[in-house]
């Protein structure tokens, strides 16, 4: 009897023109969004290839140790086609003494005058539209039958009420799950064909958990639609309830959180963390401006023979090349030691302070999940980012990894010694060193023009410094495993499943006392 009813329910849905239109619409939207995202992803891949090329070229042309400025370039995540997540640029420039707090891009195709507000993704499609579609399919599932009299008829048969409501729920759920699963798996297969060489285990893990999550989402909304249809006598009334509920879950709750609750919870802490960050950056700036001892101040050594800027500008340390007098080398060496001992720790502290801003935001996001455990849209948004691997936490991990690479490099320089000696900013071979400035002036009887001519002559003929590139660790994209995924999503999934069970119990209880006349 139950199987018959279930088949009947699904066949009914298949025959309904309303459902038919809904499915067409969903498929159309899915295809549109998928194509947009694939085109976008392809662009990102092209840029990534170009970025890697630029980085490799730069690393192949380094002339001294200060030129070792590798980049951590994040490969575009294939699963971002489904969930764009926390949007960032994908390149971090790793420089010896520069704070790593944000990402940048090398080779972006960017419209200077048009900053699109949103890039649609499948997650938005699911949370915003699929939820609405499920409610539009199921809002009259019980009271619709009551209106035409079939519910009363069914209740005269030896059929338990629980079985009836279960088959209603299963009918909608199986149907929508199929409607989602079909294009979803087709899209996954098409990606496997198009991007066969970019597939990683991450993609398959993400794809599976995302599908699993969406199935739970569909289950929740199927239950919700049925619950709403038991809340009013007429389908028209439940339609209004459905739209109202959808608006509250989809629009009012997230917006109230973003603009009213979240700022009141986190603004003060973010402000405090930002202040701490500014305190450290100000101290760091002082360390290379006001607190710089004279014997380490590069501005106090002869400038004319520097092939680039003096190395310090208002906003930090600049790249430079070095060749000149002994005094210049010695001053440079002391400057490097000063940076390592006084500036570098402050930079690292400023990074820690900046991370606190991220941490406050991450905590607020997690808190939203707990407060609105009954809202599948909030939970879906949060979980889908964790599943795709492009959440704010992943961004922080990316920054941390880049900092580790930089720290390794700095420590390598300190251990091998090149961080503090002439090799760091070397321009010509050491044998072309000019010697002491005083000696040089004495040699030409204090005639600066003659010194200048001599220096120019050497500069034209001197051989360039040839360095041996040290072996240093390069950026590798992290891969998460199944064992890593489960702790990431466990808490939210438990909340989600809990809210589904709760809703099912409420429907069960409500339908037992439902007036079927």
């Amino acid at each position, binding site marked *: 009897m139950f199987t018959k009813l279930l088949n009947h329910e699904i066949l009914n849905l298949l025959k309904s023109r309303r459902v038919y*239109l809904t499915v067409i619409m969903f498929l159309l939207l899915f295809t549109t969004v998928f194509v*947009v995202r694939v085109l976008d992803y392809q662009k990102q891949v092209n840029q990534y290839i170009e970025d890697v090329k630029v980085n490799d070229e730069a690393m192949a042309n380094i002339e001294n140790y200060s030129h070792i400025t590798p980049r951590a370039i994040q490969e575009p995540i294939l699963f971002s086609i489904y969930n764009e997540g926390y949007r960032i640029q994908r390149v971090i420039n790793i420089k010896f003494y520069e704070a790593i707090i944000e990402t940048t891009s090398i080779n972006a195709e960017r419209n*200077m*005058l048009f900053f699109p507000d949103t890039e649609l993704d499948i997650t938005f499609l699911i949370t915003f539209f699929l939820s609405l579609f499920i409610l539009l399919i199921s809002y009259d599932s019980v009271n619709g039958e009551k209106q035409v009299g079939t519910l009363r008829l069914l209740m005269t048969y030896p059929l338990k009420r629980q079985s009836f409501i279960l088959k209603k729920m299963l009918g909608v759920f199986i149907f929508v799950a199929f409607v989602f699963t079909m294009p979803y798996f087709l899209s996954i297969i098409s990606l496997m064909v198009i991007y066969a060489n970019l597939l990683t285990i991450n993609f398959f893990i993400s794809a599976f958990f995302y599908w699993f999550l969406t199935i739970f989402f569909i289950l929740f909304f199927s239950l919700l639609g049925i619950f709403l249809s038991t809340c009013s006598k007429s389908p*028209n009334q439940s339609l209004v309830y459905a739209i109202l509920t959808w608006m509250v879950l989809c629009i009012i709750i997230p917006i109230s959180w973003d603009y009213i609750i979240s700022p009141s919870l986190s603004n003060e802490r973010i402000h405090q963390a930002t202040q701490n960050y500014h305190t450290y950056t100000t101290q760091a700036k002082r360390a290379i401006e006001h607190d710089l001892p004279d014997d380490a101040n590069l501005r106090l050594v002869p400038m004319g023979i520097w092939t680039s800027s003096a190395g310090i500008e208002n906003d930090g340390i600049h790249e430079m090349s070095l060749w000149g007098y002994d005094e210049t080398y010695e001053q440079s060496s002391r400057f490097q030691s000063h940076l390592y001992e006084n500036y570098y720790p402050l930079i690292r502290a400023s990074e820690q302070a900046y991370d606190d801003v991220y941490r406050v935001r991450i905590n607020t996001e997690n808190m939203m999940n707990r407060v609105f455990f009954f809202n599948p849209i909030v939970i879906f948004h949060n979980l889908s980012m964790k599943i795709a691997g492009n959440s704010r936490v992943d961004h922080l991990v990316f920054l941390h990894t880049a900092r580790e690479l930089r720290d390794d490099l700095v420590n390598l320089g300190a251990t091998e010694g090149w961080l503090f000696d002439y090799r760091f900013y070397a321009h010509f071979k050491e044998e072309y060193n000019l010697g002491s400035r005083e000696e040089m002036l004495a040699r030409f009887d204090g005639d600066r023009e003659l010194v200048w001519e001599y220096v120019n002559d050497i500069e034209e003929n001197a051989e360039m410094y040839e360095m041996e590139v040290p072996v240093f660790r390069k950026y590798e994209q992290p891969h998460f495993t199944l064992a890593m995924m489960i702790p990431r999503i466990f808490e939210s999934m438990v909340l989600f499943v809990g809210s589904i069970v709760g809703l099912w119990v409420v429907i069960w209880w409500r339908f037992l006392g439902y007036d079927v006349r």
Partner: protein
Amino acid sequence: MNQIILMKDIRLMLKDLKFQIFFLILVALFILSAISSAVTYQNLSEEFQTDLNRHNERVADGESMQMIRMLQGNLLQVVSRPSPAVLFSSYQTYPDKISVGILFYTPYFDNYGTSTREVFRLNWYFILGILSGFFMLILSFEAISHEKRAGTLRLMSVYGFKRQMILWHKYISYMLLYLIIIVPPALVSLLLFFAMTGTWSMVFMWKFLLILLISVPFASFFVWLGTLISMVKNYRNAIVMVVFIWLFFVIIVPQSANIIAKQLSPLKTSIEYNEMWRQAYLEEYQIWGDEYGMQVHSNGALHDGIRARAFHACDEKAALTKLIEIDDSDRQTRMIQNISAISPFVQFEKISEVIFDKGYYLLNFQQETAKRSINQITNLMIEQDSRDETSLHLFYGHANSDRYVLSELGQIPFSEQLFEHPELLFVSEIETEDSWTKAMRILLRLLPILILNLVLIVVSVVRFEKLDIR
């Protein structure tokens, strides 16, 4: 008799649960939009204030305003001051901040509030432009089918009411309802926003009222659409059609416009544009180098001005490539706009840009203002520099770096005096068009939606005349 039908329609609709719930939703959304926009406004104001403070610090520090230093870096800022318009829309699709150097127009475009981008923001545009159309569709998709089902349509026909009259009364009732559910909560939202931000302004009050008025033809379009749909046989299927039409205009058209325009009018990558810039610079440098040799290559010969002229020419050539980049972006942007203009929602936002002096409409005037400011500042600097006897009067970007070469001779390439008009470097008042021209622009934007209304009226009337009302 007409009055009786109208009153009947209005009373019925007022009693309708759909109407009551939508009204409550709109009240909640309008209030939330005022609160969220007030938060956004305060954040934007803080960012604006930071920019202003930075400018004031530069003016006060005694170095940045030295004219020789002003020749490098993007010192001129032309910004759109945050205004209550944020209650209507964040207008973050287009830049509202231009930083530019004094020598040439090589702007850097930026936006206030870029750190907080969401899929959608709760503001009047979301409510009036996107949701209210949906609500009017949902309210009106049963306009005829309900009467037909209840048999009242047949009854009215027996009483001798003309079909057209029935249709028009339905329409007028819905439009009155629209005003009832929109105007009071909108006014509450506006007053709440003004109270929270302390930005009370009669000018903006009128502007917001004008926006409410302009939203009427857009709502009317959806009412006619809903009415037309309500004439189909299965009205429950119609709701899906309704949602589809809404989604088509809200999502599919703007998103497709974005993709199609990017394919039809692609941009170069940043590396390619940088390469163009570099090539243009080097080619010009080569030409000057070939002609003047060491007078250009060396940094010792500054007095004759040839080196300065050469560098100025190089910078000018490079700046022209920046204009190509802007033109490419502008062409793509226009294409996106033209394609997305099919959607009435997009048209509505474009009209608001004209009313509030924001978005792409403002951007053009902002760029013009920046170019005018550059000319004005340049003339004033050259005039002030001509009074400085220590200056060689060499107006070029490398002047500051070259001054060390001349330091021992007591001369400088360009004056080190403080610029006498630092207030010109921060522009937040941007002049746009007069009211008449704006009105014409708005009318032109409104024309398509008015024509669509007319078409729907004709189709609805013809269809209703032929409708089997049994």
